[in-house]
């Protein structure tokens, strides 16, 4: 520890701290623009110049390490003079267009200018003008306002993983720009808006829609991925105007993914359902709540009376709150129906009943950056959990070795030590090789189910998997780690795969040998919470897939668009069509709900209170940020009233808190969670080793901005490059093997359905696979996300323009 003095205050600071750290620690404000605690030090704005005893010139507080006995003056005449002179320089070329600038009112330059600027300017020459840049649909630029602090440049390079902005030109001609003809495509790009200390980078969707002082800020939790990022919902006139990150060091730090930041546009979509609707003679009729609820409960009662409670299927979105999930499950069980599930995109349910507890990610989010070795199985991490990818990036920057087993070779924008890119079928084999190699390294015979032991005997370990196993065992180029901290994680593609049981069992066995932590990376905001509460079929009930395979007479849908949110789009569509009655609790009047019979308008997350449980088991409740739109009601209330109308007991809840207390039995949620989270299996699970060696497989990845009904309606996000028309993406060898060429039109067939697609060369896809995006209106004819698929050459005339198809689909 070092003893220093700042403005007469004696303090003790850690060795290696900078002056600005020390000052921040004792609450002495030093003005700054370029400095940001999460980014590298640039020391270019010079605003933080302070006087230091024994130095004849002022020093930048952000870049000057403290020394023992240092005496620092942040408010001395010399320091103030230096700060004021920098302020004057910063303002001479700044347009001072605060009245028309979106940053006005929350602008560092404005605030600091009030404290350090003069009331008039000595600058009478012409001001510099900089041409604005187009950097995509999310970030708006007014480059004349830029003060060249390079925070945006450093963020994209250091946190985003790719330098997409840079400073070109010298002196006054220096300007921030993207690569020629390129936009900023980072899935974390919105953070540069927050980082920009002036109004050079502002939010495009928010532009000119409100002044910052008109907005009420309400805390909430991000609803799209299972990170549980803390957000701040900014509200004006009972409308969500924008969403910003709320600092939470252990979860989202000070960042937010673009999906969580810009999805709010979906909340204000014209698609929003505002009144209950009933289908009458094939036409939608608006009605009141009483009629709608009574009608719904009547229908459900009739069907369950006539065909048995088993004839009902309840599908709940994993993005719904715990309260909603709990009530939906108990409504079903109250009727005697065991057909409840939230695992809409899962194919393989063989592990049901074999788990000790609730599967989770197995580590805390902020532990990831401390891992030494990481194995990611079937995860396109930047697509699935954009902000979590950043934690992995930090781990790799800290020296961790990242290994990837996946059918997709998408660049995670961090160094990969080892990777095997193979068909999902062969991933089982590859994991087996790693397991075998690891047991060889340990010279140990494993206690494995006989089928697995037999499989391992047959498997031949290849050099690349051997290398991966050695990496996981801590062997290194320069030195070996005796007890490396290892993390093994299964991503969305593994979770949706019909071989999930095999992948999971092997990952668990590899984890057992390597002493790894880890688990699954659950896809949605409340996947873990839904599992904890058991929003899953009873021992006699049907899981999500079975409910569609063997169609039910009636469905209760909570917050889903069946053909876009279920793993088998065609089956979902068909099941809804065949059903006698579909009651949908939904925030949107969706095309995908055309086959429903009753639409009950529910409040999305900003309009209701509720609770999400994150991938790391954090139970986080939130309040409504705005009042429900139109006749919308929070889903927990709708379910409660529906249950009451059905005459079920145990639904006397007055608030969502009461539901929450019931869920946790009055205990502290963290105690319940601690007891429940467990990735272990109760018993050895037999695996099936019927692995087909031929046949084309679909990789039906859900694009990040198609993951749930809200984000699908966020218009600006829909304009990003992540939302392009689904194509049949294959590697060069695969295209040749099928006798096709890049740009050919093919008819993709899965089960009974099909889609007309254009072939696109994409060498990031494993041989034997074709990547066709799911959760898209143009691929709802297709089946399993990770199933077999065939491609037939088709003619150009079948390939209709995108807009025509969308219109047709919506007609």
């Amino acid at each position, binding site marked *: 520890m070092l003893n220093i003095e700042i403005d007469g205050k004696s303090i003790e600071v850690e060795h290696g701290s900078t002056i600005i750290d020390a000052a921040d620690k004792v609450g002495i404000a030093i003005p700054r623009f370029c400095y940001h605690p999460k980014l590298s030090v640039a020391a270019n*704005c010079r605003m933080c*110049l302070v006087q230091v005893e024994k130095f004849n010139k002022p020093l930048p507080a952000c870049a000057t390490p403290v020394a023992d006995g240092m005496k620092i003056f942040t408010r001395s005449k010399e320091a103030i003079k230096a700060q004021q002179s*920098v302020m004057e*320089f910063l303002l001479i070329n700044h347009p001072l267009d605060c009245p028309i600038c979106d940053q006005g009112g929350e602008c560092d330059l404005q605030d600091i200018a009030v404290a350090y600027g003069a009331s008039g300017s000595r600058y009478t020459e012409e001001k510099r003008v900089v041409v604005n840049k187009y950097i995509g649909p999310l970030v708006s630029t007014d480059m004349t306002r830029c003060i*060249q602090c390079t925070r945006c440049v450093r963020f994209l390079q250091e946190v985003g993983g790719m330098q997409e902005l840079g400073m*070109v*030109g*010298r002196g*006054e001609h220096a300007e921030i720009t993207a690569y020629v003809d390129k936009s900023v495509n980072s899935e974390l790009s919105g953070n540069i808006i927050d980082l920009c200390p002036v109004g050079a980078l502002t939010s495009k969707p928010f532009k000119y829609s409100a002044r910052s002082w008109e907005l009420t800020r309400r805390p909430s939790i991000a609803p799209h991925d299972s990170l549980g990022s803390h957000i701040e919902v900014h509200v004006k006139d009972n409308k969500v105007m924008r969403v910003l990150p709320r600092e939470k060091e252990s979860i989202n730090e000070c960042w937010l993914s673009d999906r969580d930041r810009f999805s709010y546009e979906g909340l204000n979509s014209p698609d929003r359902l505002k009144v209950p609707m009933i289908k009458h003679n094939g036409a939608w009729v608006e009605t009141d709540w009483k009629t709608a609820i009574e009608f719904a409960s009547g229908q459900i009662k009739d069907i369950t009376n006539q065909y048995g409670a088993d004839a009902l299927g309840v599908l709940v979105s994993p993005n719904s709150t715990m309260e909603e999930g709990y009530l939906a499950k108990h409504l079903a069980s109250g009727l005697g129906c065991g057909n409840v599930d939230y695992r809409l995109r899962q194919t393989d349910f063989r592990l049901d009943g074999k788990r000790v507890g609730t599967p989770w990610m197995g580590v805390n989010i902020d532990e990831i950056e401390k891992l030494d070795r990481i194995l990611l199985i079937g995860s396109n991490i930047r697509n699935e959990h954009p902000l979590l990818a950043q934690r992995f990036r930090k781990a790799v920057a800290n020296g961790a070795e990242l290994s990837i087993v996946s059918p997709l070779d998408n660049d995670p924008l961090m160094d990969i030590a080892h990777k095997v890119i193979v068909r999902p079928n062969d991933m089982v084999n590859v994991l087996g090789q790693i397991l075998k190699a690891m047991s060889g390294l340990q010279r140990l015979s494993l206690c494995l189910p006989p089928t697995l032991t037999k499989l391992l005997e047959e498997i031949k370990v290849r050099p690349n998997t051997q290398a991966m196993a050695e990496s996981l065992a801590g062997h290194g180029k320069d030195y070996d780690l005796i007890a490396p901290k290892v993390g093994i994680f299964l991503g969305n593609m593994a979770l949706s795969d019909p071989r999930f049981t095999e992948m999971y069992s092997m990952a668990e066995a590899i984890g057992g040998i390597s002493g790894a932590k880890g688990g699954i990376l659950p896809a949605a905001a409340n996947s873990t919470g839904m599992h904890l509460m058991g929003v899953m079929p009873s021992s006699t009930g049907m899981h999500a897939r079975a409910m569609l395979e063997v169609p039910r007479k009636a469905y209760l849908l909570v917050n889903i668009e069946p053909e876009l949110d279920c793993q088998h789009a065609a089956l979902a569509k068909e099941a809804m069509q065949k059903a006698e009655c579909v009651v949908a609790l939904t925030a949107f009047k969706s095309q995908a709900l055309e086959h429903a019979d009753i639409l009950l308008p529910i409040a999305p997350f900003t309009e209701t209170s509720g609770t999400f449980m994150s991938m790391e088991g954090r139970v986080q409740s939130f309040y409504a940020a705005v009042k429900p739109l139109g006749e919308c009601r929070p889903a927990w209330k709708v379910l409660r009233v529906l249950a009451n109308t059905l005459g079920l007991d145990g639904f006397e809840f007055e608030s969502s808190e009461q539901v929450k207390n019931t869920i946790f039995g009055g205990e502290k949620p963290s105690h319940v969670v601690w007891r429940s989270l467990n990735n272990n299996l109760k018993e050895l699970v037999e695996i099936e080793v019927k692995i087909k060696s031929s046949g084309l497989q679909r990789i039906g990845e859900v694009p990040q901005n198609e993951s749930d009904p809200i984000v699908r309606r966020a218009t600006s996000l829909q304009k990003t490059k992540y939302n392009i028309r689904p194509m049949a993406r294959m590697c060069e060898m695969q295209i040749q093997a099928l006798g096709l060429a890049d740009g050919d039109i093919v008819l993709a067939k899965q089960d009974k359905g099909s889609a007309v697609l254009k072939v696109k060369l994409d060498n990031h896809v494993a041989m034997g696979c074709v990547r066709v995006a799911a959760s898209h209106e143009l691929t709802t004819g297709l089946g399993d996300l990770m199933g077999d698929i065939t491609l037939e050459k088709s003619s150009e005339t079948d390939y209709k323009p995108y807009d025509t198809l969308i219109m047709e689909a919506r007609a």
Partner: protein
Amino acid sequence: MAATKKSTMQKTVVKTDIAGQTLVTLRTLTEENPASLETYLKLGGYASLKRIVTEKVKATDIITEVKNSGLRGRGGAGFPTGLKWSFMPRYFDGTKYLVCNTDEGEPGTFKDRDIIRYNPHQLIEGMVIAAYTLGARVGYNYIHGEIWQDYEFFEGALQEARDAGYLGENLFGSNFSFDLYAVHGYGAYICGEETALIESIEGKKGQPRFKPPFPASYGVFGKPTNVNNTESYTSIPWIMQHGGKAFADLGVPNSGGTKIFAVSGHVEKPGNYEVKMGMPFRELLALTGGVWKGRQLKAVIPGGPSTAVVPAAAMMDVTMDYDGLSKARSSIGAGSMIVMDETTCMVKTLHRLSYFFYEESCGQCTPCREGTGWVYRVLDRIVNGQGKMEDLDLLTDISNNISGRTICALGEAAATPVLSFIKHFRPEFEYYIQHGKSMVDGK
């Protein structure tokens, strides 16, 4: 390729008038074909290197010798070379680098060009000795982008040295190896700043780094790196050959050896003059044939535009060494002496100089990026007859606000001419502002 370059350049080069000069770094100029390896060998070139490597002279002894020589950095800062060398970490697990700064980009600076053009092998030998002393494995000579021909020529000299076994693996059968490469810039003045130069070598935009850490601990590719000026390295073989004391004795106390003055402006014979440190300015001026056309001397910028201008009266008594020029409140800089006669308009001169700094600011940090443009625009207004009397105080204030508040020394470099011109020639500026035209040429 290399051979043809060599011969074409050498024929153009025979310089005989060296009377009054003391040639150390340009010592091959007395010979025919000065740049050739044979010439250099004839003068005892590479002998010191061979002796040092084969006799395994201790690095500490070499550093002591360099310290004794009184050699100070010739690029402008004047930091004692021996002391700088002693900052390089002795034990380092990895590659250490050696960098030569031949990026002379300031107006009026052209001395290093003549070294690589007429005496490249002495520079190479100096760098190899430095590499041996500091344990560097790889070296780069960063050459100003505008002197392309000289860059290509230096590549030829490097190849000659490699072929002759003075560069490469296991020199003279020892286990000492050193590879030296030439790198050329693209014409940014800022790349003459050592950390911007390092960034540029790494392939990045030339922008100074914040110091500390200094290159000795975090240089090229983040590895320990020693950066010296061309003239400094070129002095080393002479020091090794004749001893540090002999070198120190050439000059005056605190300024050892010789210095090349690149004299330009209003003299009869502009050019490079290598003279003993401490030579009186009068003598140096006489060497150059005096002020041209029989005119009177008005002022001298002794070390390049980033050093303060000195009026004629004060300049005539100055001795050309670090202390002498510092007494005249200027500095020896890189020795880029610009002589101005009585017909020179100081307002227009400053206007032109400020344009240079305005154009060459890298734009990284605020005071220099914004301040140099402001200074230039105000001066531009004055030159165009739109000046106001308060502009002079404004210019002084802006310059004081730039100076000492920037990442690198370019801030001071840009401020110094403004401050010194206005200080010494204020009436001329006032006249210009009042009359809207120059006091000197009436235009």
